[in-house]
């Protein structure tokens, strides 16, 4: 049995390992100073985000989907000091000091969360100078961090907010590499720096990819991997090397190995781009072989063929509603994928992987719901809403603080002008940590990136 099965998360963490080193060594003071610096640097590029001011607010008389499968018709949502205070039936007295917003005929959901975005690392305009999502110089690059590519001025963030109600999103490296590097989870709040967008306390993810992309990119250059078996060989050797590092004293800094050790420790979550069912099943076995967990398969157009395996593994499927046939491994995609996976008791997340799709995750979920209904799988609206809120938050490791309207969570929420599972509905207001970041009724309450200033369409409705 592999040691890594028994490694305690605490003892194995990078910080703890370095701390043990400090305690165990008879170090000179300069050495200690150097090591202190190293300890401090285990949380580099830390989030500098803090919430913007908001007002205690009561959204009164709306239909509430709480993100956890709950629904309140004619309810009230209260939030204050950046936190959800509660959801109650309308008609109850609203505490003094709350701004009252009439939600009659409207809907409230948690903020939309996209688990798969490349905003910032493939920003618009999509010119070569902005192509920062794939470090396609080596098939395994666990050493790169997506946050070091994110351009906070990507106009796509504002569209995701205003049209999509997106309040948090995970930016992933691309899928050219078997192991693409660390992801970063952001609050969808404009900032001059990426640190100012980083979601406080969110764990890192690591992007992996199976199938056509890595073997095409590297096989085309006459190097491994050029086949699917090559994909696995390169990955397995990477994990073997990582285990050796993780099981050692971890003294020597190694950016790649530190990330991989973080995965083996359970601190960094695996997000694995994978389309085909048979390949996902092999990846699940690779995860068993080396003692890590696949948190979510992304794209996963064939999840419906192995929904039972995914349920048993506790692995989510982050999917489109109905993308189809654009590549060989997408030829068996079906619109009923989400419904079939949900029906089997496995976890469904609707993702975008697209700067346009991120503006309509609610509509994608509605399509997937309807396609299920037509084959006799009825999934209620309040459950479907979790596909683009709480389920995404869970797989990103932030469900304890966002993704639903539970008391005490961050006041990340959207007031829709109708049922978000209808094509005719749009976000009317969006709050992040209780601060109103978008208001369709106020032309100035929308972000405009530096890039757009002084250009045609500056500040337009978009």
């Amino acid at each position: 049995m592999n040691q890594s099965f028994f490694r305690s998360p605490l003892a194995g963490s990078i910080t703890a390992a370095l701390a043990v080193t400090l305690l165990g060594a008879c170090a000179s003071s300069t050495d200690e100073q150097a090591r202190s610096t190293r300890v401090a640097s285990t949380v580099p590029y830390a989030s500098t985000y803090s919430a913007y001011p908001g007002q205690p607010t009561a959204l009164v008389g709306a239909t509430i989907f709480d993100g956890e499968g709950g629904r309140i018709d004619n309810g009230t949502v209260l939030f204050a000091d950046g936190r959800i205070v509660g959801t109650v039936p309308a008609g109850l007295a609203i505490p003094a000091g709350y701004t009252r917003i009439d939600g009659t005929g409207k809907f409230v959901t948690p903020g939309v969360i996209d688990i798969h975005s490349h905003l910032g690392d493939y920003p618009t305009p999509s010119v070569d100078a902005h192509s920062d999502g794939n470090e396609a110089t080596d098939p395994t690059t666990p050493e790169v961090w997506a946050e070091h590519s994110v351009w906070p001025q990507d106009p796509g963030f504002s569209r995701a907010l205003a049209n999509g109600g997106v309040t948090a999103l995970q930016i992933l490296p691309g899928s050219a590499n078997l192991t693409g590097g660390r992801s970063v989870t952001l609050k969808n709040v404009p900032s001059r720096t990426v640190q100012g967008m980083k979601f406080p306390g969110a764990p890192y993810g690591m992007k992996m990819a199976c199938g056509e992309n890595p073997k095409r990119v590297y096989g085309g250059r006459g190097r491994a991997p050029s086949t699917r078996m090559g994909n696995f060989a390169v990955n397995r050797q990477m994990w073997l090397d990582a285990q050796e590092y993780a099981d050692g004293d971890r003294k020597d800094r190694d950016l790649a190995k530190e990330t991989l050790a973080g995965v083996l420790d359970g601190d960094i979550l695996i997000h694995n781009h994978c389309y085909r069912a048979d390949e996902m099943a092999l990846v699940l076995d690779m995860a068993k072989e080396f003692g890590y967990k696949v948190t979510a398969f992304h794209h996963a157009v064939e999840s419906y063929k192995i929904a039972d395996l995914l349920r048993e593994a506790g692995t989510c499927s982050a999917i489109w509603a109905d993308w189809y046939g654009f590549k060989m491994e997408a030829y068996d995609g079906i619109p009923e994928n989400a419904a079939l996976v949900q029906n089997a008791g496995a976890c469904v997340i609707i993702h975008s992987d697209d700067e346009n799709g991120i503006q309509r995750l609610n509509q994608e979920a509605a399509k997937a719901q309807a396609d299920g209904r037509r084959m006799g799988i009825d999934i209620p609206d309040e459950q479907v809403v979790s596909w683009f809120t709480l389920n995404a938050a869970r797989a990103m490791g932030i469900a304890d603080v966002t993704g639903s309207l539970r008391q005490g969570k961050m006041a990340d929420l959207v007031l829709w002008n109708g049922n978000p599972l209808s094509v005719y509905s749009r976000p009317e207001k969006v709050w992040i940590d209780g601060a109103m970041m978008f208001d369709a009724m106020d032309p100035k309450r929308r972000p405009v990136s530096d890039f757009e200033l002084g250009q045609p369409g500056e500040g337009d409705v978009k």
Partner: protein
Amino acid sequence: MKALNRLMIGAALAFSAPAMAQDFAITNATVATGDGSDPVQNATVVVRGGRIVAAGSGIAAPAGMQIVDGSGRWVTPGIVATVTDLGLWDVGAVQESNDIRSGNSPFSAALDVAPAINPSSQHVLVSRAAGITRAATVSRPSSSIFGGQGALIDLGADADAVTRPRAFQLVSLGEGGGRLSGGSRVSAHALFRNALLEARNFAQGGAAISGTASRPAERRTGDDLPVDPRLADNRTERGDDVLLSRFDAAALAPVVNGSQPLYVEVERAADIRAVLALREEFPRLDLVLVGASEGWLVADAIAAAGVPVIADGLDDLPERFEQLAATQSNIGRMVRAGVKVAINAASMEQPRYLPQYAGNLVALSRMPGAAGLNWGQAFAAITSVPAEISGMAGRYGTLTAGAAGDVVIWDGDPLEVTSAPVAVYIDGVPQPLENHQTRLRDRYRDLDESDLPKAYDW
């Protein structure tokens, strides 16, 4: 489960026999005719001999005619998708299966998709099941700024897909055309003008014809050089410097004389103005703009020129520098200015998203400061308007008397993302809605392999 599958296979096989146009009347339905009007409730649609006889309220089904109960259903003309690549590919990234690009072809304008259309492509089948009955399909500009000649096709389950071959020519100007023509818009316009001049000359027998300049006198600023007459008029003897092959020149002849529409891919406002100005030089060009993300900035000029637009529906990002002013309100603003606008199927992942995009434009009409479309306008933008732009006014995309019997029965509002067709007719012929996806759905309805592997479940 397996019994159910067999039933469905039976239905599929029944459809595989040569289907006949049916005479039928759909009653008690909500009917949208595609002409821009609002839907009408409790209405009837009558189809006979493969054509629409009547549609609307207060129409009685002819005695003895087969009646389809439309209670709770919506009935519309089939969706008309333009511009698409339907029938030209199986898998996008599988090059061998993909006839969309011809980057190494010696030909450009002469390319003609008609012989390559495969009516059995899964994308045709999937689109048909989504209610698309007609499409304009064309290959992408790749060896030149010219993409070649597009065809109008129907999506029927039969061998005769092509309704009108060589229905239009496609040219890419702007950034795309600049890249294909040698690196710049400047190059693209030179290549384009030369091609049209050569084609015009070729059409006239190749002889040198003296004549007056065909474009207005240059604006003179006093210190500029005069334009050489050979750059301006029709003295383009086919000599040693001919760039077009005979095939390409012949293919462009109907463009120059205006008998074949020219679809021009262009996004930026300045590029749109430059395209509209082409008619001063080539007055018979039958122009259609494709893309036009910044069309709203020049909407009045487009309207005044009477040039229709096949516009990207929801583009709102500066994907390229030529799209800085992109906004989802683009179509609404252009329509408000009097431009005829269809929603461009090429701007979405799959043509079957057309109703979703149209529905989004309706949603926009409720947003402060935004411009959208009302329901009738939005539905027309994916039915009658693309048909009109395709030269098929009154024939497709409408339920007016005499139009083709292309009818879709939906389980709800067709622009709502939760709705889908329950029946599709093309020329009055009921169409199969099965495809690779539906067969996979049926096989994996459950994961039970206790008797035999899934491979035996069909």
